[in-house]
Structures are given as C-alpha cells and as structure tokens.
C-alpha cells in the first residue's frame, strides 16, 4: 500500500468542486509562486511552523530539543533552522501548539477512511474529495491508489493541480477522477519562468491532453496584480482557453491571508508591495474576458488551508 505526505485534511470545503467536500492538501510543489497561500506545503518534507502569539514561555521546546536549535525570546521561540533536524520533539511537547508540525505521513487506507467519514454529506450535497496541495501529482502513486479506492467507494473525486506534472502520472489518474480543477496562472513563457519558476510547456500540453481525453475540467486563474492582470497576460490566457475550446473561467482574487505563514516559517514574503485587487479591477477583468468569449463563472477565495 502506498503512503504519502499531506499537511491537512479540510472537511466542509465549499469551493473545491461541487457540493460539500473534503480537501486533502498534499505536501510538495514544483512551483515557487511568491503569492502562495500555503507555503508550508511547498517542501516535500515536514516543516516546523510557529505561532508566537500562543507561547506561554514554558521552555518545554528548549528543553526537549536535542540539537539545541531552539531559544526562547520575548517573541516566543526562535528556531535556528540550520541546526534543526526536524525531529519535531519540540512540537510534540509544546502544550500550546506554538510549535506545530506541518506534514504527516498517511497511507491510502487511513486517508480513505478519513475521507469517507463524510460520505453521507457527500451523498446529500453531491460533494466528494478534492486533492490539492502543494501539488498532488508530485505523489502520483499514492494519489492514484487513493483515487482508485475512492472510486470503488463511489465517492466523487477532484484534483486541483497547477498542471506542472508528468503526463504519465496525470493520465493514470483519469479513470478515477471526476473533475480537474486546473490552476492556469500564467500563459506567458517568460513570466512562467520568472514567477512560477518552471517551464510553461508541460502545463499547456497537459491541459490539451486532458481535454483531448474528454476529462471534465474547471479552469481557475488567480488574479495577481502586476503579474497577470494586464491586458497582454489576459489576452494570452484567453487565447489558450479559446484554443482548447474552453469558454469559462473561475477567478481567484489574490489576498494576503497567507502572509502571516511566511513569518511563522521564517520565510520572506515577497508580495508585501502588492495590493489585493478591488471590485472595480475584477469587474474590468470580467468585462475584458467576456469580450473575448470567456465567461467568468464565479470568484472564489484563494484557498488557505
């Protein structure tokens, strides 16, 4: 049986496909989008999160750290990330969850059992399970076995992906996947390299292949001011959609709710200077795309695990 690493299981998810759903966040992502709302999900390995506001200065973390990587400051624990071996003894002993482990190993049966707890809710609402992340296709064997098991259980399945993955893995999910939520962030090769840190080609090819294989697809685009909200970027996205015969798009306006997580992970947040898009800007995008035959179905909030 396959095992995988996930960092959250979110029940009562309302915006990751039809009905009321359980969303599973897989750890690990090949992209490096600076606006990422779940930076704890980028690395494949476990990460150590801190929530300094919860600290009661009990010093258990300092006492339990075998690497002497934790110091207590006025602002809660300070982690020397270079020394830290990610043994997580500090988190295990932290009474207040000031220190928290993000990422846990889980096998297919454990995960499926967790998901089917809401079977009745799925049946009543037309919901199911959505695999998000991170990038779920980074763990293809685990993902495919989970999907296959859920299909045997009669559960609706969805994958939320950036599309940056090996086609073979993606292809093998198709028999067990009812919906692909495809996050098309950028359709410009140069910008893709710059912001996502990856080549855009496989993203567009995979989209094409899924459509060619008659997969059910919902395309989403995050609206990131100064990155993809200009006319040229929108035109490029519209062109891709038209080429693939897609005439609808869901928008996810950028927000800053994830920015605190960067501090908690001792990472730089590179988006501080970017403002969230206002209603007028969104309306402008809506009109702009509508004129190009792309219908905006809804605006959903950017997901924050």
């Amino acid at each position: 049986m396959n095992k995988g690493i996930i960092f959250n299981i979110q029940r009562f998810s309302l915006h990751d496909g039809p009905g009321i759903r359980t969303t599973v966040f897989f750890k690990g992502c090949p992209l490096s989008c600076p606006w990422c709302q779940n930076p704890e999900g980028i690395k494949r390995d476990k990460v150590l999160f801190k929530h300094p506001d919860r600290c009661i200065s009990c010093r258990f973390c300092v006492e339990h750290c075998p690497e002497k990587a934790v110091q207590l400051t006025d602002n809660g624990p300070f982690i020397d990330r270079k020394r830290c071996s990610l043994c997580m003894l500090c988190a295990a002993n932290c009474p207040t969850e000031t220190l928290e482990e993000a990422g846990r190993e889980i096998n297919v049966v454990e995960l499926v059992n967790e998901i089917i707890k809401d079977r009745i809710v799925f049946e009543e609402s037309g919901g199911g399970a959505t695999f998000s992340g991170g990038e779920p296709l980074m763990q293809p064997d685990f993902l495919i076995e989970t999907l296959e098991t859920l299909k045997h259980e009669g559960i609706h399945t969805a994958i939320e992906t950036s599309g940056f993955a090996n086609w073979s893995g993606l292809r093998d999910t198709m028999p067990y996947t009812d919906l692909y939520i495809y996050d098309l962030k950028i359709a410009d090769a140069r910008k893709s390299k710059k912001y996502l840190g990856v080549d855009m080609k496989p993203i567009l090819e995979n989209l094409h292949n899924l459509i060619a294989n008659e997969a059910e697809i919902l395309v989403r685009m995050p609206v990131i001011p100064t990155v993809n909200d200009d006319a040229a970027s929108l035109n490029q996205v519209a062109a891709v959609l038209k080429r693939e015969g897609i005439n609808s798009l869901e928008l996810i306006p950028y927000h800053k709710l994830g920015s605190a997580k960067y501090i908690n992970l001792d990472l730089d947040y590179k988006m501080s200077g970017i403002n969230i898009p206002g209603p007028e800007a969104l309306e402008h995008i809506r009109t702009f795309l509508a004129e190009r035959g792309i219908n905006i179905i809804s605006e959903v909030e950017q997901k924050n695990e």
Partner: protein
Amino acid sequence: MNNIKRGTNERVQNLRIQSESTVPSITIERALLVTEVYKKYANKVSMPLLRALTFKHLMENKTICINHGELIVGERGTGPQATPTYPELCCHTIDDLSVISEREKISFDVSDDVRNTQENEIIPYWKGRSMRDIIFSKMSSDWHNCYEAGIFTEFMEQRAPGHTVAGDKIYNMGMLDLKKQIARKLDSIDFIEDQEALAKSEQLQAMAICADSIITYAKRHADRARELAESEKSTGRREELLKIAFVCDNVPANAPRDMWEALQHYWFIHLGVITELNTWDAFCPGRLDQHIWPFYSKGINNNSLCKDKAKELLECFWIKFNNQPAPPKVGITLKESGTYTDFSNINLGGLKPDGNSGVNELTYLLLEVIDEMRLLQPSTNIQVSKKSPDLFIRKAGEIIRKGWGQPSVFNVEAVIQELLVQGKSLVDARNGGISGCVETGAFGKESYILTGYFNLTKVLEITMNRGRDPLTGKKLGPDTGDPGNFESFDQLMDAFETQLQHFLEIKIAGNQLIEKLYADSMPAPFLSLIIDDCIDKAKDYNSGGSRYNTNYIQGVGIGSITDSLTSIKKHIYDEQKYSWDELLSALANNFSGQEAMRQYIVNKTPHYGNDEDYADIIMQNVFQIFHRLVDGRKSIRGATYRINMLPTTSHVYFGSVIRATPDGRLSGMPLSEGISPVQGNDLNGPTAVIKSAAKMDHLATGGTLLNLKFSPKVLTGEKGLDNLVHLVRSYFRMDGHHLQFNVIDADTLKKAQANPEQFRSLIVRVAGYSDYFNNLSEQLQNEIIARTAHDLV
C-alpha cells in the same frame, strides 16, 4: 426594546411597537383574586372545585383589556407586558420583589402598590402555604444538599407542570361541546362500584365550571368591545370592534367558523391555561399551519378571506404571545431559565395524520410572518420530513441566515420514531411535534413533564472526590474509592455510574413527592378540558389524566463530561503523561501555576465534536449510562421516565458550581450546551460536529439540542442555502433530532457586548430559544461568543 416598524401594515407596526416598548411589570390583580377565593373556600370544598372556583373568580373579575387597533384580544395581565403572580405556587417575599425589580437582566417593574399589597394581603395568607414553601419543607436533607450543590434543578418549585401543547380537537369543538362530554361522563359514573366515583365527579364538575368560566370571560370581551364601539369615532374601528364582539360571542363557547375565530378561540384557551396556573412553557398551539389550514383554505376559496387579511390576523396573533413575558422567576429557576421568553414554540410543516407532507400555502405565509415580526415570542421551528420539499428548508433558511436564531429545524422522522418508541399510536405521533426548546410530544394528548436539569459533569467531579463535593465540602455521594487506585479507565466509569445512580434516585424520590403534592393540591381542571383523555378518564391533568404521561430528566454538559473523561483516559491511562495526584491537585488549584499542563490537555486531547471515535465512544458510554439509569422508571401518576438533552441556560449555572475540570475548563466557567461540543473545541468543521452528535442515540431520547454557529458568508446566496439544506438533510439522515443556527460573527457579538445601547435589537440563538443579546448575563454572552464559528474554507 426598540421602536423599529415591522409588520404588514400600520396597525401591526403600532401593536408591535407597543409590545416591544412596554416595560415588563408585575400586576397584583391575579394574586388578590386568588387569595379572595382561597380565603372563602379553602378546606370547605374539594381541591378540584377550589381550583375551578378560583378560575371562575379570575375569569369573572380580571381586567378586560382591548388594545387600540388589535383584532385578537385578551391579555393575561391587565395589559401588555403586565405579568401576574401565582402566590399559590410561589409567594414572593419582599426581598424577591426588590431583586426582581432591581436586577440588571430580566427585571420587572414593581410599583409601591404591588409591594404593599404583597406585604399586607398576599404574604400573610400564602406564607407557608405556597407550593414552593411546601415542596421545600417536604424534601429530604439529601435532596436539599444536592439541590444546593447544583447537581440538579427542580422545575416545579415555583412553576406548575404543563409541558403540553394543544392538539386539533379544540378546532372542532367549543366549550359547550366539551360540557356535553362531561355531562355524559358524569352520567356514566358508577356510584355503587367505583371507589373513585366521588373524586371523578368532583373533577368533572370542576371542569364544567371552568368551561363556563372561559365562556364568561369571552363574553366580557364581547361586552367591552361593544362598549368601546359606542364611543369609537372611526367607522372602520367601530366595525372592527363589533366584529370582535361577534367573534367573542361565538368562541370559545362553540367551535370556530373561520380563521379569525379559530385564532381567537385558541387565544382564549391559551389565556385560560396560563391564567389557571403558571405552567411551564406557557402553552402552545403546536402545529399552527395544520390547524388553521382548513379555515384559511375555506376562506380563500369562498372569497371571505384574502392572503393580506390572513397575514394581518396572524401578525396580530403573534403580538399577543410577545405581550406575555414568562412570569418572574427567582433563585435557581431564574438561573436555569434566565429569559422573558416563555417557550411557546410554533411548529410548521411536518406530516399530516395520513403520513403525507404537511407543508402548505399557509406554511409559507407563516414563514413570512415570522420574518416580518422578528419577535422573541412565539418561538418557531420547522418540522422537516424527508417528504418536505427543499423549498421549505430554503425559505426558512432565508430567515435563519438573517441571524436572529429562528426558526430552528427539527427532524420529523426522528420525532415520530421517538414517540413510537414510547408507545404512542402512529397517528398521535404524526400529530405531534416539539415544544419548549426541543421536547418531543404527542400534542393534545400527552403530559410530558420536564422535572429538572441534571449536572452530569458535577457527578464526575464528585466521583473524582470520593463522593464529596469539593465546593461545599459536603459528602453527598457514596465513597466509590480513591481514583488513584483505579487500575483502569473502566473502573472510573463504574464509579461514575454508582454515583450517578445515587443522585438520580435522590432526584426521582423528590419528584415522586412533588408529583403527589401537585396531584393532591394543585389540580388543573381547565387544562384538563383541553388535553385528552382527562374528560374520558375523569382524571386531572396533574393526576395522570392525559392519554400519555412522561417525565423527563434533562442531561446537561455531555460535551464537557466527555472531554473530561477523554482527557483522563488519554493522559492518565493510555499515555500515562500525568498521574491522578497531579491531575487532582491541578484541579483543586484551578490549574494555577499549571498553565502548561492545562494547555497540553486542551490542545492534545481528542475532543467530542470532531468525528473522532476516541472521544465520541466515551460520549456514547456516558449517554448510555444516563439513559439506562433513567429510562423506563415509573412515576406515581403512571408516567414513564425518559431523558432528553437540553440546557436552556442551566449550562452556565451548572458550570458556576463546578471547579476546574480535567478537560482544562477553569473553575466556574460554563459547561457545553445541549449536545454541542465544548465551546471552541470543534475544529473539524460542521460536518464533523453533526457526525459526532449523530453517534448519540437520539431516538432513545425525547429531544436533543445541537447548536451550530456560522459566519454569515457560509450561508450567503443560493449556494449558502444549498449548504444549509445539505447539512440539515445529512444530519437528519443520521437520525439527528434538531439543529439550530447562530449566524453571526464573533466580532459583532464583541462589539455588542461593549456597546449594548447600539445593539438593542440584536437577537441571538441561545439554547432552544432566541433572546435579545442584551438580556443575557455576561457569562452567557461570553459563552455564545466562544462557540466556534464555522467559516468558509
């Protein structure tokens, strides 16, 4: 409270403003009239007759009030919000009156005249004679010790049994018809063989006197309306007053002929019940849309009624409920039920007696009335069957998401199965519903008495202290051993069961005595007219005259006790992180200097409400023990004991008498309410909450109460209504009994707490009822803020 204009027209708006802006006050009129009768007849006539003569004297002499503009007439007191007292049940001391008038919340104006009359006329007669005085003097010292320690409460110490709802019979029969039944029954009494013949005949005569008396009361309204018509300048109003007189001449003497008469007919009966005695949960028309439907549809079909007129009548009817605050409570009864709301809880939808969906055009019109009126009283709920259309839930959802807590949502199939399990016939079960907060009943045919809340968490505290109450220091239960010597978690559960049995038996022994006292000295011949089969059995409501008799004990704090036990199981037995000594000493010191331990427990214990079996199985164990120890016991009037799981406001009071608990709760803090998880401990979203809650055997209860709090955006738009429908349907598919929604964000509540004057009209869901946020104690406000709001993810 506020002067917001709400209502279908100016008439209703003005009546609503009058209802909402009048300050509740005490009227001494009833107390004086009752005292007059008792002085004249007590010990000279039988008890049923004494009560009937009391009722007659009240109906013949109480002030008649017809408010300007109203269409449905009759007040319990001398006017809107004027509230009588019931010295035969609870004779307030002068100190009580001061507390009632001066307390910050749920106060009543008490005039000097009222105070003087109470001191000079009422107290001298009733001191030592009121039920409250008699009950307290008869209870054992064990009972008193437990009562004072907060192990249980006692519903009947200052209010009478009631806990019943009108059925359909009154819409087909007037008082004259009931008198004919009584006469037939009197004729059939066998004075030679039947040893109870005399009691039966006294009871039937008492009922007949009550039937005549309420007719007199209605005629007095008719006379008064004609009198007012004579001096009325407006032609329109003059005609209305003459119409009111016409209506009051016919009902309740005869069966109603149209919708106006049906509503007025019920209202006179309602006033009769709540004037005769201060019954718990006032009284209630129950399945209003079903009862009024024949009159409504007939009126619409023959063009004697239009929808607007029907709505106006219904809104006038609504205001009558809101004009009658719950009579002033004192002591522990105030703590367990701290509200003006008197729990008339109107049921919409449900099933018809033939098993088909009861949702009709009037159901939807009533939803409009609820929305437009936005009043605390009457409470309202929707009865959702698998046969009910989604549209019904969606229309109710449009009101629910406005955030003032009405209507609440019930599972018809569960309610019916609960009634069938208790032995009701299928038709009686389908004609039933819920009343009060969440209590299941066979309307018109059952006396289902709530006898008191039971503090399950307190019993665990006493178990951990070998039978001693750490707060009072008194030894209240048996010594079930030092928990430090319990080798397994099961041994703790066994000790808990021993203690629980001990305390339940003290409670039930007290109940038996109180039930006998009411049967002997406080019959309710008027109520007995209304509830089947009191006439047939020639037996009073308070002596077991109803077709079905049930007694409830209400379990409180299942979330808190579960999380406490889960914590003990995990940290002491499974992981041995802490010893019993460490835990008990931390509890004794209120976790002082032990914040790290407290936090560890709070954060690293599986909690009830997260769909984790580790905790939920313990909840099931506690529930089953409680159920096993109560369910099926018999009372002296022939009632069967059952349990239900609701708190009203007792979870705050019960928390105030418990020191720190093993779940990390600090001393004095509220317990969890209903069957909801401990406030803030449900972290896996609402689907996990309903899954956990559904692991309880709802069908073995007479009602459970689950509160879900949502931030408003979860329920926004059509998709929000989808979410509501799906959660309701899912929970009900799992046999959940009831769901209520608090749709408001914590920030708004915090603002309201800081600036009460700006939030005077803010209504929130408490536990089985709604109340003005400003009417709630600060502790209860905090408790509501602490409930987890399920947000969008």
